């Protein structure tokens, strides 16, 4: 990379200017656990790297009334250490925590995982299932978008030149609302998800689901919000019949590919299995959360 330049701005505006005015391919740098791998393999050849980690507002977690605000470049270890967020949304935190090794967790971030736009991203399904939004800074100012609007295809996002994510807004759970994320990998660690599933449910006092979101990863070019699966849950308890319909709905939604990590048939089957298992956990967590999290 003969013409690579590196800078580390300390404000959002500085970073926007640097990205917008860059000559050649400009990449924001968060944890670097995708970017540096891609640079090393030659898949990506940036000419400009803008390190976002010196911008204070991009690192850290704060609670406001009704929501968590998570800095885009906050590393996984910091997210995991936040007891309040971990209690509120274990599915989101586990999703991020599952990425790679402890070493990767020292650097990997929600924004990095999202904007790398791999269909198999572990932190994204639960984030979407929780109806999180991303706050984006750019030459035109700031805008907010649902997380599911960011990824448009493998390796592609809807971010314009000069734009980057500043923070995520994650609504706090309502009473009897909880989530779960599960993934399937061949080993016990260190693999990219063959299938991932985030389930977010709200129950009423009787244990009947009143609201749900089921999001699948790694079975389509982008994460899939499976409305049919949510409908299978709404209005029902989680009994064998519901699980069976959930499984079928998840399988029907899959549009996976055959690749070195899994076959179409395998991914489809396991999507159904994970949807069931994640739903069981989410329902259990939701039933135990009577008071919600304020």
């Amino acid at each position: 990379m003969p013409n690579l330049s590196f800078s580390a701005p300390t404000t959002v505006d500085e970073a926007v200017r640097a990205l917008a005015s860059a000559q050649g391919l400009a990449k924001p740098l968060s944890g670097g656990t995708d970017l540096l791998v891609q640079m090393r393999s030659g898949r990506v050849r940036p000419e400009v790297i803008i390190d976002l980690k010196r911008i204070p507002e991009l690192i850290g977690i704060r609670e406001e009334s009704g929501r968590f605000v998570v800095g885009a470049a906050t590393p996984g270890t910091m997210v995991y250490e936040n007891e309040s967020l971990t209690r509120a949304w274990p599915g989101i935190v586990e999703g991020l925590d599952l990425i790679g090794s402890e070493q990767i967790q020292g650097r990997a971030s929600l924004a990095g995982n999202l904007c790398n736009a791999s269909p198999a991203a572990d932190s994204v399904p639960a984030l979407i299932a929780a109806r999180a939004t991303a706050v984006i800074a750019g030459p035109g100012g700031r805008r907010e978008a649902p997380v599911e609007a960011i990824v448009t295809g493998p390796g592609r996002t809807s971010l314009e030149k000069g734009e980057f994510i500043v923070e995520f807004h994650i609504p706090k759970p309502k009473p009897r609302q909880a989530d779960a994320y599960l993934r399937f990998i061949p080993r016990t660690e260190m693999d990219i998800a063959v299938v991932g599933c985030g389930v977010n449910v709200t129950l009423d006092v009787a244990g009947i689901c009143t609201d749900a979101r089921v999001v699948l990863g790694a079975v389509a070019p982008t994460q899939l919000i499976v409305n049919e699966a949510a409908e299978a849950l709404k209005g029902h308890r989680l009994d064998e019949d519901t699980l069976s319909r959930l499984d079928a709905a998840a399988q029907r939604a899959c549009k996976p590919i055959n690749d070195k990590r899994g076959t179409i048939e395998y991914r489809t089957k396991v999507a159904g299995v994970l949807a069931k298992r994640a739903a069981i956990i989410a329902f259990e967590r939701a039933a135990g959360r009577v008071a919600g999290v304020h």
Partner: protein
Amino acid sequence: MSYLDKDALKVVGTRPIRPDGVDKVTGRANFGADMKLPGMLWGKIKRSPHAHARIVSINTDKAMALPGVKAVTTRADFPDIPPDKRVLGAAPANLWDLSRNCMATGKALYEGHAVAAVAATSPAIAEQALDLIEVEYEVLPHVIDVEAAMAPDAPVLDDSIFTSGIEPKPAKPSNVTKMVRFAKGDVEAGFAEADVVIERRYTTKPVHQAYIEPHACLVSVAPDGQTTIWSSSQGQFMVRGYTSRIVGADIANIRAIPAEIGGGFGGKTIVYLEPVAYMLSKKSGRPVKIVMNREEVFRATGPTSGAVVEVKLGAKKDGRITAAKAVMKYQAGAFPGSPVQQGCICGLAVYDLPNAEAIGYDVLCNRPKVAAYRAPGAPIGSFGVESCVDELARELGIDPIKMREINGAKEGSKAAHGPTWTNIGYMKTVEAAKAHPQLSVPLGPNQGRGIASGYWHNAGGESSAACHVNEDGTVTVTEGHPDIGGSRASMAMMVAEVLGVPFETVRPVVGDTTAIGFSAVTGGSRVTFAGGMAVTQATQKVVEELKKRAAIMWDISPEAVDWRDGKAFPAGPNAGSFEPLDLPEIASKSARTGGPISAEVQINAQGQGPAFTTHICDVEVDKETGHVKILRYTAIQDVGRAIHPSYVEGQMQGGVAQGVGWALSEEYIYDKDGRLENPGFLDYRVPVASDMPMVDTVMIEVPNPRHPFGARGVGEVPIVPPMAAVANAIADATGIRLRDLPMSPPRLLAALDEAEPMRAAAE
């Protein structure tokens, strides 16, 4: 003198801290890529993107013109090697094949095959220069699968190769370089008298040794041709010798210094980089360092064979095997030399077979040349035979351990490939397995237990060692074997035992090629055996010399001196009453009694003992995803004599982990153009810490009487049984028999669903 009585040993059999240990836990130890020299250049290699292609032209002008580039090399710089120079000493490699593997000649035979190289003042410039080398290829059809490569219409890699071992000699060239065969008795008669005959087909995929340290070297060629090579390898003498032949230099002009080596498992018993770095250094006049990156390691260095193993077994109702036939087809990669013969031999060697036949085919295909991988050939052959024996046992309703009690190799039985066994411990491993507490652990739902055995013959060969008594009475022992697993500690222990001195006063050194006599590679489980034999003999000579010096100091006859517990004693009351003399005292007078006290020994070690082992594996299967978890694992092995028990246990545990990876998750995945899709540790999946349980080890000692301490090789046989042990455990847990490796979740789930269609439909 022999040291076979374990109770008399004071050092051997204990667990001291290895002498190179502190350097390794503090980051001080220097591995292949850790060396620098002033003026050093960085070398990088241009590699073929095609699995099979004719190299039409190579133009390096633009690369040479890039500022910072100091040398470029291609095949044109390398000499042809005439037929009478293609083998060097007793080393196994065909050096013409190896030369063409280091730098492609006329054709690129696999994706990743080196076609050119550059040296420049920085890695970034070298990388840029690679892009400026223009190579024109004529892409040819390629073939990788072993049976596809054997087909009559397969693209032929080398049209000068005609299958050897079959009569009459074929008229057409073939990718089948040879057929090997051995037999005992009459297999057809054996099958005829059997009550049950089963025939099964097993397949394996290529797997890589996956050492964590990529290949690396630093080579400096002076204008007069005198050369220093610093590299990590499994043999500095191999590096020196092979490089000399490939570049056309005299051996005496090359000094090869062994760096510490970050794993080899057989994959570093040959050279890839040193001859290329040599050419770049010679042409630029500066030292050149080349380090492979991980992708290059996977794309361009030898994994072991992928294979097809067909096994036919016949047995009586009471479990006695009456006949065994195995047909094995192994990928050789771009040049001949798969370990198919070893696979045939080792697969059958575990059993006492009245009638047997094994046929093996060595098959060229467009992937890297096979390099040795821990008991080369044996794990593949044993996967087939041990799985088939398990299937046979189930057919007959006989416990798998009992099956091995009935049929296993015993003292005096004759192996199918010829030798008659003496001093072997196979039945002891079976007995120990039978008595092991793991067998009584109750198994829960979806859990199963598998047994498998293995054999490896181990190597002897050439080793040199020198033992020096220093002026202060401490001892330096120099040997010629790179220490991959802790062997230098064992060398020092044997020396300390023979001398009767504390371990800490003996320092082992792995010498470079100028510091010690010729020593063959660290491989074949031979270092503790052959290297140990050499250091023991050298030390015994030193003891004789020490007795002579004491005799001179006492003015008595040398026959009147005894040596024990690190001291010289008068042999009896008639010898005189003298105070014992220890090493420091004798050493301090050595100049006056004859000079330095030293001995060097060179041997070609004979009498290596074979290794047998039996493993027990417990698994749990997630039937909805096909995921397999290893719950418990025990490896029981005849180790001869464990010189340093911790390092013997370590060999067993490490081999088991590699076998588990081979069984469940490791494989080379090629796309339709013959390009490797998973050249990295993300998608080439080796076991991680959370994938493995503790591995229990049981070391049985049936001493090898032909080694002074009873040692036999231990390092390789542990990798032989695990694939079958895991397959047998999965069969026990689910009733599903998987015969194709790896037994990855999609394969197991598909097989589970096929066997239980009602369950699949219900979902």
